[in-house]
């Protein structure tokens, strides 16, 4: 497949529109529903939602289409977990269902924990 300049621009455009669109869904859930939906609910809801969509086979086509527009939102994190667990189960059996999800998302989770800790050590809270 040739990647022309137009393809590259299109790739970024799709990432922007789909990624932005997924964020708008989160914004609408917070602004328009009568339930008290906090950022914590959004985080949990989007990860588990991503797992469901991925297990149902709906999320992979979106990733193929939008690239980072689908993998950077937390639904993409759920997709990574689900695909890891499913592939693990298919290749290594029951043990793979336990290990696969964490294996696939290990780098991201470790990065968040390690960088999070380092930043908390280096910086002091603002507004003190």
């Amino acid at each position, binding site marked *: 497949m040739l990647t022309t300049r137009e393809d590259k621009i299109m790739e970024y455009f799709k990432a922007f529109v789909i990624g932005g669109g997924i964020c708008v869904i989160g914004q609408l859930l917070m602004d328009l529903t009568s339930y008290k939906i906090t950022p914590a609910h959004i985080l949990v809801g989007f990860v588990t939602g991503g797992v469901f969509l991925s297990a149902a086979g709906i999320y992979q086509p979106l990733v193929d289409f939008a690239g*980072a527009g689908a*993998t950077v939102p937390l639904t993409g994190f759920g997709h990574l977990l689900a695909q890891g667990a499913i592939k693990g189960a298919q290749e290594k059996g029951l043990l793979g269902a336990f290990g696969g999800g964490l294996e696939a998302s290990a780098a991201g989770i470790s990065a968040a924990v390690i960088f999070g800790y380092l930043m908390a050590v280096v910086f002091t*809270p603002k507004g003190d």
Partner: protein
Amino acid sequence: MLLKGKKAIPSDRKQQESEYREMVNRIKPKPPLLRNILGAFVIGGAICTLGQALINFYLSFGLDKTGAGAAASATLIFLAALLTGLGIYDSIAKYAGAGTIVPITGFANSIVAPALEYRREGMVFGVGQKMFTLAGPVLIFGFVTAWIAGLIAYILK
């Protein structure tokens, strides 16, 4: 006269209260839905576009698709953690709403922000414990649902 005056006070107060309420409703910022949506779309979209640029950058270094995706996520997480530490991420979040919550950077922010806030309670019970105030539920529900998906795949195999 005195009685009338006494009666006049509560009705005055009632009027003042309703006037005050009207004023509050006028001045109080209405949930600016359209502006919120625009902020979430533009900033959320920009974070994803940056993610795409990072993926392409790592692909050009010869990483495979999975590796480039993981490296891009780690880079975004690092940037979000750094910007949270500097107090910049929260300033952006004011305009972005869900645009800074939904991307993976929001997950990083949810780890760093409470870690910073509870630092004075010590490294173990402050930073170590509070880091997972928000991230804990995310990982629990993520792991459990993914495990169920894996289990179903195993049964159907």
